């Protein structure tokens, strides 16, 4: 369930108080219920993200925002966009382990979409080699920004995920897409590769008309 709703439930029983945590040695004051990413952003500390977007619920699937979180002597690796802050939390946004993870995640994704500008920027920083892994044909890396935007903001659910595991992909729902998308397309600029546009035109082309006129489907 979305992190924010849990915060509201917990807030009913505790007062929303201010918490002091440490990020990269810096003391940061943040409100209870914030995630590590939100706290870092409020203190102008940068943590890279790929599947995160302010208008949407955090998804936590790209895992590139992984940071080291230490509390009560235990250190663990968590996704900053989802992990709720707590008192005495010590966060390290860069470390050998974290950098290794980020480098490999980038290399995984570059095998799919080497031309993505977001990936290329980060690849430089972490020394990721785009030829490390064999090239994959699908250039979508399933960040879910398009699916979530259409579900949460537009509330049209014109595009969704299908299949599971390595065969997971996005797909437009033909009837809804033909009706809604041409006047909207607000998700298009969110796509870090251009797979979304490719999937959309593919959907349009696969609209196999029972008779050869396209207008039959546009009702």
């Amino acid at each position, binding site marked *: 369930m979305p992190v924010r709703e849990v915060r509201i439930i917990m807030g009913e029983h505790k007062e929303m108080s201010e918490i002091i945590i440490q990020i990269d040695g810096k003391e940061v004051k943040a409100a209870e219920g914030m995630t590590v990413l939100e706290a870092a952003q409020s203190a102008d500390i940068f943590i890279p993200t790929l599947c995160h977007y302010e208008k949407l619920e955090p998804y936590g699937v790209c895992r590139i925002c992984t940071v080291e979180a230490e509390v009560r002597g235990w250190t663990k690796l968590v996704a900053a966009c989802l992990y709720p802050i707590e008192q005495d939390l010590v966060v390290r946004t860069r470390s050998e382990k974290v950098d290794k993870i980020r480098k490999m995640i980038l290399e995984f994704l570059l095998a799919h*979409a080497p*031309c993505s500008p977001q990936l290329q920027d980060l690849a430089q920083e972490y020394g990721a080699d785009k030829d490390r892994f064999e*090239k994959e*044909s*699908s*250039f979508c890396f399933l960040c879910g920004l398009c*699916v979530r935007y259409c*579900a949460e903001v537009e509330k049209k*659910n*014109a*595009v*969704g*995920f*299908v*299949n*599971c595991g390595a065969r997971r992909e996005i*797909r437009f*729902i033909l*009837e*809804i897409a033909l009706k809604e998308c041409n006047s909207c397309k607000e998700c298009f600029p969110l796509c870090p*590769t*251009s*797979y979304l*546009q*490719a999937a959309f*035109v*593919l959907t*349009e*082309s*696969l609209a*196999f008309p*029972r008779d050869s006129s396209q207008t039959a489907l546009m009702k």
Partner: protein
Amino acid sequence: MAAGYTFEPRILGFLCNWCCYAGADLAGVSRYQYPPNIRVIRLMCSGRVDPAHIFRAFSTGQDAVFIGGCHLNDCHYVTHGNYGALGMVYICKKLLEHIGLNPERLRLEWVSAGEGIRFANIMNEFGPRIEKLGPLGKGEGIDEHELKFKLEAVTKLIPYIKLVQSERLRVSVRTEEAYNKFFTSEEFNRLFNELIIDKLALYLHVSARNQDIGTVVVDNDKIDRIINKHQGKAGSLVQVLLEIQHENHWLPQDVLDRISKKLDVPLSRVMQIVTFHKTFSLIPEESNE
């Protein structure tokens, strides 16, 4: 060949204004003879030729398409459009091959403005070559309707193919060697097959199947009964789908639409669940239960 009938191939040529068209013009002025079957369309740059033009040409009865441009690295435009033409032609040739047509029907040549005789020689070679190959489709032994269907399918997929090409099938270094190396590589073959051929095959399969299935008769009462049994709760979506799959052995699209409406869940969520695991079947085949 039947007596009294000679096949006159129809060739469409896209010639770039600066080099090839001038070269063709020079050939004409210098009275170099070449077969009259080529109809010429003048463009500003060979890079302007779109796969849609090529396939429209084939769909409207041309037997061959010729593209002429400036020599590589001599393009009159800063954008080096002729490299674009080169990449595009590699892909179109593969597509032609896939639908059963001889890829030699599409030809790309670099002819400069002063190479009039070269232009004539090329045409003198190309024309008879196409004559030998025979009319489009008939020469390869493809049925006329099937060919029309397949050409239509490729034409519909062109916007997708172009996006895929610009994102995934491009070469970063602009040299003839790099282009040739990439487009003849294993990697290109694999990516091309997975990204384009698979989608084309899917399209052909879907449309063929749609023709086979025709209209599906769905027992709405039975569906409603199952939905009501679970009190129409959104949380029982999975249980409803399982029961219908068990009874009906497959899930027609209309049933999914109905479930989506009655349980008030977005169709994308229903689709996600039914494609998630092979438990569900979207085609009327025996499920493995």
